[in-house]
């Protein structure tokens, strides 16, 4: 009887005793690590967001002058993995879709292009440390365009429509350092954009029996962009300003100027579940100025 009692007592007491020595015991550490891993994945790892944005491009180059406007409504979802590989890292992966509306008004030949488009974006950020991150994004857009331009007395307006596919991507590295009350983020990124317009035919007589064909054209840009962003976190969110320099590695069709200078500012209101932000940006380039603005709402759960 005594032996049996001692056996039962030791079996019952062993786990409790093992955990009493939590400081150095392997088992307790393993349990703590497992609990830690579970709780790190538990809440606020998902977010959905919506963004309304607009951009206006004023191109004043001789013979190429035009005004271009774009409006976009974008929706996205992302998941934030805390410590996916190491105790220090974080990974964010997301997907977004948008509907777009663009118009281009060129002075030469009164060329007018009105386009509707939809796009899909995949994006991600891997941060091996909180201060170092590698953002990546790839977007594919499908455009459907209606085009008109001045014609001849026989056919006063030449008109046509076509579809085109665009790709945009961005790959970079960002370093964030706290400086006094600010967060200073320096980003170096490669940006690529293209659009493959197909060849198109325009009727040059009222009966539409004769046509003129314009060959297809690929417009593209490959840029190296360095930006410097200063963020001031506040008790209710943050405000930030941005300045940068972008260099054209390649642009087709070729342009004389290779440099442009982005400037931006924005503010975010952050609550437990919501982030509401506004931002504005201007890109200054010789003879070309772009302005853009966006309003974003994000819900985290």
């Amino acid at each position, binding site marked *: 009887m005594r032996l049996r009692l001692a056996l039962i007592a030791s079996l019952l007491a062993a786990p409790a005793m093992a955990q009493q020595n939590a400081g150095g015991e392997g088992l*307790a550490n393993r349990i703590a690590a497992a609990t830690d891993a579970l709780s790190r994945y538990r*809440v606020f790892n998902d977010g959905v967001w919506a963004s309304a944005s607009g951009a206006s491009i004023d191109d004043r180059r001789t013979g190429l002058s035009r005004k*271009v406007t774009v409006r976009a409504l974008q929706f996205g979802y992302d998941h934030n993995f805390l410590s996916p590989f190491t105790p220090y890292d974080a990974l964010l992966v*997301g997907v977004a879709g948008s509907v777009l509306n663009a118009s*281009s008004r060129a002075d030469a*030949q009164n060329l007018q292009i009105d386009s509707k488009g939809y796009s899909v974006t995949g994006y991600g950020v891997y941060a091996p440390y909180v201060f170092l991150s590698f953002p990546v994004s790839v977007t594919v857009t499908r455009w459907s365009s209606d085009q008109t331009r001045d014609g001849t007395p026989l056919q006063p307006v030449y008109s046509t429509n076509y579809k085109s596919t665009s790709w945009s991507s961005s790959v970079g590295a960002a370093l964030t350092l706290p400086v006094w*009350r600010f967060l200073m983020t320096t980003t170096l990124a490669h940006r690529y954009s293209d659009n493959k317009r197909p060849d198109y035919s325009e009727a040059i007589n009222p009966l539409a029996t004769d046509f003129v064909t314009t060959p297809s054209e690929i417009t593209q840009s490959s840029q190296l962009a360095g930006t410097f962003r200063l963020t001031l976190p506040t008790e209710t*969110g943050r405000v930030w300003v941005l300045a940068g320099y972008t260099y054209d590695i390649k642009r087709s069709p070729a342009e004389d100027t290779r440099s442009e200078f982005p400037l931006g500012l924005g503010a975010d209101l*952050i609550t437990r579940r919501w982030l509401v932000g506004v931002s504005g940006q201007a890109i200054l380039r010789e003879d070309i100025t772009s302005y853009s603005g966006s309003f974003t709402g994000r819900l985290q759960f």
Partner: protein
Amino acid sequence: MHTWKRWSWRYRVGALFALALLLQGSNCPLGGSRTFLATDPTYTVPGVGEVFRFVDIEEERGASYVIKEIDPSTGRYWRIYPGDPRYGLIAAYFGNLSRGSSNPPDRSSLPGGTGTPPPPPVQ
């Protein structure tokens, strides 16, 4: 059915079981506070100080984004809930990752954004 007699073997086993449960419960890591190890990384959040990056949920206060901050005098940490003036500072610090999708598109990806004008109209 007979009543348990004090110090009978059943009584002793029962008492041991109850004691074991109590000891186990007092130290159970599930549902309790997590202990931070010296090797856990901390971050210097401007305007706040040393902070553990940690997200947690508590039944009595609902789902909340909780950060644990080290008290320099005792070495212990505490949670920062929404409503605390420092909460926004910490959330902004950890939420500062670039989302990678905020860049406006370049002209070259827009129809008519750039490119060669078509040849002049013909009669």
